[in-house]
């Protein structure tokens, strides 16, 4: 099934230079904080410093009296005029209960960072000065900061409106067959696997500039976002301004990783305040706010069990999963709930499974999407597999070989109802372990251990769901226009924030329209100029927007050929388009340029009256079910026995994302994702104390990995057709998925040499030392 022979085109498949780069390298990008609008005011939030409390009173008088302060808004001003704050997918037919969102806390606060007031002033500095003068009288109440505390009997309720801290509890019915398999299995392994809280942390924090004109009724918004069209819908529902009078623009966006996919709570408050005051307001989130109150991610645990036969073949599994939604999750309940369980089998044949999925609320920052929001399934599965391998007494690679879904097993239906096809987990497992010289490493590891050193190797194998057919996220439109001078413009509803879409979609158009790459420009991020679209996230752009763009380019090409046929007095089927010229096949001197075609169309008498004089077309593509990509990550580590520090040695990824539009971009996505997984396992941890007080709200405490900590990633490509017209698969999230168990398992492998075990992340030096000490090593 695997086809390595899918050839690259003239542009598609080439590592062309990015169109984005010259402006970004010279300081000529335009991010939201770089935009200034007339009479713009600046905002700062007053946020709760308690995890749970009732509000007795809010005194804004001193703040209002400060020079330069224009308004100090509380929930009394804004909550009554606010429409729904929920994302479109939850406004109707939400599958889950939605958190009781309100612009500003009036009666009580529910996490540290919960906004209580918004100060609007002539500068950000003055707004911060005034925010210190807003006095909120709180009566502290008990808080629940962890999943365990939220689940305890008699726990205080985060949202009394729900009547429970567990708004979603979705258990499969008890399955006697599963129980029987566990009862008779040669090996049973069972562990609680915990993934700690860590966050997207885009380098550009969130930001918005909102202006409302009382006369025209126009709401004009600049936003750092992954989805301007969704933001427009949200702001329209929020403010009551009809959607055609709401314009949302984004310039360059400094990363999102899911955090900016849905429209954030605080941005909505600023938009509402602008509408209320009739003034333009800029709010640029600072780093402390971003860490404290934007969105948090991961924070999952599961009791996982595997039943295996004597050879290590998996017979059945149990997966009892709990996801921490925090207090006010962004985008429904912030996580993906039962989808995690449905993906738990991953690339392995697991005949029977029982699962339960719970979402709990805690008095912490709300959960939001982060690069592979469902990825705990991979963490839990890959980590328990290594535990199982050690229990059975076989190598972690071997247990994967025994159980992996082979190419000729496909299409393969999992016990949870997923249907996999066109995936190559077995191939990537072999490739990745060959590239890293798995067997050679085992010998090196043994030799090093003889000298007392602890080396380890770990594998993370997974299948990645991309371009999900979920509501409006499964469809995308692209408009391609041949301009009068012969250049080409592409209008997309996507919202690039690092994904190189201006480059890759220009490659697609250049390829399929037959124009030089340099002549194609991509426009996105302006709701007045671009077709409605779901934004950029969920590894959906290459598949959905890419196929829409391809279709639109082909349609424009057909129109160009139709006009050119008249100009050249040739049959359309005899014409070819390349390098911006339409020529008669075999007679290259009989040709017209695209500029000549455009001139003919746009001028009186240019072509015969019965020729359609339209040089633009829209392509729309609806994904045909999930597109699955897959990869295998393998890495080696050394654990310092004294300090507990982990150093990564080699890091190899073998991945299959179908036909690549731009391999340079693909590799950059993999490398960046791996860095985030490495950060998550070894360095990044958003910590609360038991009372819900955050301890890591600066970059001195929340540790992003630097160039010293992140390894070089060696990448092997396996190319299997994606099963759509352009043959691509999504791949933006996988790097952050496979890396987590690969690094974790490598450390666990090293520690197993001395009988030490770790089950929780992050693997801080302290935790590693404690594991070594517990094992007497």
């Amino acid at each position: 099934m695997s086809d390595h022979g899918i050839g690259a085109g003239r542009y598609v498949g080439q590592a062309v230079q990015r169109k984005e780069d010259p402006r970004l390298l010279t300081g000529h990008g335009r991010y939201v904080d770089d935009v200034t609008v007339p009479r713009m005011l600046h905002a700062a939030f007053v946020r709760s410093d308690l995890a749970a409390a009732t509000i007795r009173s809010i005194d804004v008088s001193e703040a209002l009296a400060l020079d330069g302060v224009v308004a100090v808004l509380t929930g009394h001003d804004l909550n009554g005029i606010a429409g729904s704050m929920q994302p479109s997918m939850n406004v109707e037919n939400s599958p889950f209960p939605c958190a009781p969102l309100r612009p500003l806390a009036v009666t009580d606060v529910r996490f540290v960072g919960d906004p209580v007031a918004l100060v609007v002033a002539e500068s950000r500095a003055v707004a911060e000065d005034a925010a210190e003068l807003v006095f909120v009288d709180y009566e502290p109440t008990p808080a629940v900061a962890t999943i365990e505390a939220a689940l305890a009997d008699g726990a205080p309720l985060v949202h009394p409106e729900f009547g429970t801290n567990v708004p979603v509890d979705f258990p499969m019915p008890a399955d006697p067959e599963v129980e029987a398999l566990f009862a008779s299995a040669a090996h049973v392994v069972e562990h609680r696997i915990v993934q700690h809280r860590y966050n997207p942390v885009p380098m550009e924090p969130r930001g918005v500039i909102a202006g409302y004109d009382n006369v025209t009724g126009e709401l004009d918004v600049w936003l750092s976002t992954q989805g301007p069209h969704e933001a427009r819908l949200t702001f329209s529902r929020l403010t009551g301004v009809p959607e055609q009078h709401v314009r949302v623009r984004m310039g360059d966006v400094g990363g999102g990783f899911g955090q900016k996919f849905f429209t954030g709570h605080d941005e909505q408050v600023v938009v509402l305040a602008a509408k209320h005051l009739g003034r333009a307001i800029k709010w640029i989130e600072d780093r402390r706010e971003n860490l404290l109150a934007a969105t948090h991610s991961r924070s999952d645990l599961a009791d996982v069990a595997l039943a295996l036969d004597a050879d290590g073949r998996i017979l059945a599994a149990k997966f009892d999963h709990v996801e921490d939604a925090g207090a006010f999750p962004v985008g429904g309940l912030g996580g993906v709930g039962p989808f995690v369980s449905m993906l738990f089998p991953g690339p392995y044949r697991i005949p029977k499974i029982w699962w339960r999925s719970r979402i709990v609320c805690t008095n912490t920052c709300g959960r939001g999407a982060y690069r592979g929001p469902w990825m705990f399934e991979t963490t839990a599965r890959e980590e328990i597999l290594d535990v199982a391998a050690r229990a059975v007494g076989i190598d972690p690679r071997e247990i994967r070989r025994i159980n992996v879904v082979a190419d000729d097993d496909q299409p393969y239906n999992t016990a949870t109802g997923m249907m996999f096809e066109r995936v190559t987990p077995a191939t990537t497992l072999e490739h990745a372990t060959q590239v890293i010289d798995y067997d050679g490493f085992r010998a090196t590891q043994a030799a090093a251990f003889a000298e007392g050193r602890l080396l380890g190797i770990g594998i993370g194998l997974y299948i990645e769901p991309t371009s999900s057919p979920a509501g409006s996220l499964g469809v995308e439109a692209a408009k391609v226009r041949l301009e009068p001078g012969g250049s080409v413009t592409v209008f997309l509803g996507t919202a690039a924030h690092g994904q190189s879409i201006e480059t890759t979609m220009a490659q697609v158009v250049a390829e399929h329209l037959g124009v030089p790459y340099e002549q194609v420009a991509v426009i996105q991020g302006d709701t007045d100029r671009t077709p409605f679209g779901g934004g950029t996230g969920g590894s959906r752009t290459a598949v959905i927007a890419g196929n829409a763009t391809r279709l639109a380019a082909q349609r424009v090409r057909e129109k160009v050929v139709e006009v050119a046929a008249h100009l050249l007095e040739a049959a359309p089927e005899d014409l070819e388009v390349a390098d911006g010229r339409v020529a008669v096949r075999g007679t290259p001197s009989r040709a017209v340029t695209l500029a000549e075609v455009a001139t003919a169309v746009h001028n009186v008498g240019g072509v015969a009256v019965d020729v359609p004089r339209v040089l633009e077309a829209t392509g729309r593509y609806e994904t045909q079910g999930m597109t699955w990509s897959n990869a295998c990550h393998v890495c080696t580590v050394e654990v310092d026995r004294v300090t507990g520090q982990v150093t990564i040695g080699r890091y190899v990824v073998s991945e299959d994302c179908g036909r690549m539009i731009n391999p340079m971009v693909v590799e950059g996505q993999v490398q960046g994702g791996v860095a985030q997984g490495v950060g998550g396992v070894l360095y990044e941890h958003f910590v609360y104390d038991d009372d819900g007080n955050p301890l890591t709200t600066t970059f001195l405490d929340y540790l992003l990995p630097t160039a010293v900590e992140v390894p070089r990633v060696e990448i092997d490509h396996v190319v299997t057709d994606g099963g759509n017209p352009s043959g691509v698969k999504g791949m933006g999230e996988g790097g952050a998925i496979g890396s987590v168990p690969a690094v974790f398992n490598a450390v666990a492998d090293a520690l197993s040499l001395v009988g030490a075990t770790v089950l929780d992340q992050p693997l801080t030096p302290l935790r590693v030392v404690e594991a070594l000490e517990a094992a007497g090593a």
Partner: protein
Amino acid sequence: MSEHDVRLTVNGARQRGRVESRTNLADFLREDLGLTGTHLACEHGVCGACTVLVDGRAVRACLMLAVQADGTEVTTVEGIAAPDGTLSPVQQAFMECHGLQCGFCTPGFVVTVTAFLEANPDPTEAEIREGIAGNLCRCTGYQGIVEAVKLAATRLREGVDA
């Protein structure tokens, strides 16, 4: 809350301004001079996005007051390319090696690497990684950046030899 007149040279042009004591150099460059290429990503001196050259030395513009820059020569990312827009060897190498994705940390890296290679024209990979460890990037995994520094170093050395 005192205010001060400051005079300085930025990217070769003389500038003057009046600033509050508390205004840091980054905010002054961005808001008073409109040089928005200098980015603020943490405002507490960890991420390096706001790195500029002051009298030729790379510093964090969020950790220097505008008033402290009085009388200095400042180079921002806007002053790295040639006046006609031709990219510097460092910028060109970042483009060729995919050393940037979202671009937000990029100005700080470009300025940092420009200063780093001046001090250490022939660095090892370990020295490169150490040299850029004061700048955080969330997109690239640093691999393209490290490659870019190597490429720029080679070209700059060849340029000197030629």
